[in-house]
């Protein structure tokens, strides 16, 4: 078990190095950071001085080595645009992104399961067909469009919900939360729906398919034959058995919810890490871009590692193959 975890951890480091190398080689196509730092009429000599002070005149290999040397010690440098340490910028923005991601996931799970169960049990009703149609929209419409549509409906036309930002936030230690104020909660609704809609459709379709599958199995038929109530059969037996794959998918998707929050955050001017990243790309702020990409790959790698380990815990067959020497 320990050997397995270690091996996976080493693989994870390899993955992160690869992400670092790929992103570093791409930064050269993002443009010249110096141009974004200084104004248009800055003299060439001044530009050269800026370039030198940032170490941008060194060969790429050296820049890469220096960056990873520092990153290994958790030093991510100072943002070109904000002149603040990248680590503190990310830490400041992380609560916003995590709160959004968690709310979106909860929204997707709750409504996805409810709608999935309903459309499996009452396949032919009008409501079930509407759910199916909605799920198609959720899968096919791009996130930014859904966000804009929601803004125009609920903010501009009806005036119920705010169109941008996090509302009032409360500081709890180093964490800032929008969950404790009314304006903060209101501000969470539209972005959470926008971000969670894709997951919702995914979960709903998964639950529906699994549910239909389970309802056909023998033990459900036996349960019916024993005269259990429909309610007990559907929710006590059928739903429980569909949840294992749902939880796996939702867990794995959590990483992409965080990573894809970029678009939702841009549309709603949500002050999270995704927005920071988009601003960094526009301004060729390499320290932020590099740190963000590394962090996202770390999240993905960690989630996958945990899932792998959990599988071996859950499934004894995997464990036995592991114990045998290769």
């Amino acid at each position, binding site marked *: 078990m320990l050997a397995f975890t270690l091996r996976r951890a080493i693989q994870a480091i390899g993955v992160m190095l690869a992400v670092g190398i790929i992103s570093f080689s791409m930064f050269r196509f993002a*443009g010249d950071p110096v141009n974004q730092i200084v104004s248009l*009429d800055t003299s060439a000599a001044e530009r050269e001085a800026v370039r030198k002070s940032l170490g941008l005149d060194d060969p790429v290999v050296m820049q890469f080595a220096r960056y990873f040397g520092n990153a290994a010690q958790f030093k991510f440098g100072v943002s070109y645009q904000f002149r603040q340490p990248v680590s503190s910028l990310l830490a400041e923005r992380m609560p916003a992104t995590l709160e959004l991601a968690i709310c979106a996931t909860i929204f997707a799970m709750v409504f996805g399961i409810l709608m999935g169960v309903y459309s499996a049990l009452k396949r032919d009703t009008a409501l079930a067909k509407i759910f199916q149609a909605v799920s198609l929209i959720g899968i096919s419409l791009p996130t930014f469009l859904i966000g804009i549509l929601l803004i125009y409906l609920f903010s501009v036309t009806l005036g119920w919900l705010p169109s941008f930002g996090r509302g009032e936030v409360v500081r709890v230690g180093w964490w800032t939360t929008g969950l404790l104020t009314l304006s903060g909660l209101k501000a969470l609704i539209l972005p959470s729906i926008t971000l969670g809609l894709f997951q919702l459709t995914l979960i709903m379709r998964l639950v529906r398919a699994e549910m239909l599958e389970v309802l056909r199995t023998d033990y459900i038929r036996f349960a019916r034959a024993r005269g259990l109530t429909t309610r007990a059969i559907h929710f006590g037996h059928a739903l429980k058995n569909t949840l294992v794959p749902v939880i796996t998918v939702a867990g794995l998707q959590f990483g992409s919810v965080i990573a894809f929050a970029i678009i939702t955050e841009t549309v709603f001017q949500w002050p999270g890490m995704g927005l920071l990243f988009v601003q960094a790309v*526009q301004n060729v702020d390499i320290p932020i871009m590099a740190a963000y990409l590394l962090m996202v790959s770390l999240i993905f790698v960690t989630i996958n590692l945990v899932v792998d380990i959990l599988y071996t815990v859950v499934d004894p067959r995997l464990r036995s193959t592991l114990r045998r020497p290769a």
Partner: protein
Amino acid sequence: MSLRQSLLAAATVTMLGFAVAPASAQTLRYANQGDLKSLDPYTLNESTTHAHLGQVYEGLIARDKDLKIIPGLAERWETPEPTRWRFHLRKGVKFQNGDPFTADDVVFSADRARAKGSNVQARIAADVKVVKVDDNTVDFILTSPNPILHYQWDTWYIMDKKWAEANNATAPTPAAATTPSFASLNANGTGAFTVESHQPGVKTVFKANPNWWRKPEHNLKEIVFTPIGSDATRVAALLSGEVDIMEPVPTQDIGRVDSTPTTQVMKGPELRTIFLGMDQARDELLYSNIKGKNPFKDIKVREAFFKAIDIELIKTRVMRGLSTPSALMIAPQLFPLSKDFTRPKFDPDGAKKLLTEAGYPDGFQVTMDCPNDRYVNDATICQAVVGMLARIGVKVDLLAQPKAQYFAKILKPGGYQSSFYLLGWTPGTSDSHNVLYDIMGCRDDPKSSRGEANVAGYCNKKMDEITDKVLVEPDPAKRDQLIKEAFEIAAKDYAYIPLHQQALAWGVSKKLKVVQRADNQVLPYWMVKEP
């Protein structure tokens, strides 16, 4: 103090607090596409940043609602000799932390603005001596006369020497700071507002300064600034009443904002001139099918390009009326004699004939560089130009890129890699000399900064001579004549193709009274908001 007493005291303080604030004091909510990145007034020489920091800091001079120079922190000034300027400072002005404003602060700010890492070094030339005469008088001693010495000083913000020294901020925060600096996260000026909190990229809150030396024309108690990068979100925020003012309004949304009963678009000419440049420096163009020679070296080809462009069509179709076609490389507000110039008429047949005379009866092929996220409808303008040039037989391959890549390619550090491009320019000094020197000056001397933004490599020695005379001519009328002479040379040479000044478009709630200045500075200290 007993509990009762302290409660009483607290209640009194609260009531006093209410009494001090005017009954109608309002909160202004303001959104801009761009961000306020650093609070250090010497980090970035850019107009949006200057506008933000102009709420907190002030210069020796100020500019009024029509951009005319008026006294600021200096009550008055005179030039006893052409090379010596004397500024009399306003008495009794205090910085927001309570420090008095004195001549020492001016001398300190002059040194700091010119120190290494400052982006506003051009505000005062390095050879100008700044001398304190007494606590309220400062002399600026020049090596040669400069009639526009103080033109840019409305945005040379005066900082508090004592405050800077106490907080280890005597050196300017360089644009490429590798360590965070105090002055980039805190501010202490003499201006109308103080910075209450600043979270870069998220939100900045300003509070009205009760001790401001001017009588406030605004009725605001607070400004909440949020950068909103996404166009659609910024428009939605205005329409839903969550912000009172935002800038810019995307051209396609102007109708929508205007047709909403609670909002309107304030339009006006801007100072930035959008123009096309043609590489005249290289012997062979980098991106063209003509080898061995450079067609743009032929004045007839440049004239043909100029005459092939239907500027009215660009104005009506691309800019939806929101542009002022320009005959000059400078906005008319900045040069009084610009009315003497007119654009050569749109004449595609004449252009075709000129091309034939130049030896290109079937036209030629050239690549055009264009930004797609820098100016209003920049890439669309380029597409229109491509179509217009196709009519005279010139095949243009358009390369439209985000500004990050675009500027890296075409500016000096990228080696001026462009054959044909679109660029916008606002003279930082609000004066023609900057245009003549930076964009039209010969760039053949590698040691001089002349012509650093002259991507086209246009060069005319006669023009350079006049430019140098413009710099030292003290008489305004004679100076304008010299400038006119220089612009006439540029027009005759078809050095550049000026297109237009784009229009400002601010989205404003109808509750808000706003002064719109042509330099696109959103200035809350002139805003009045109805409750």
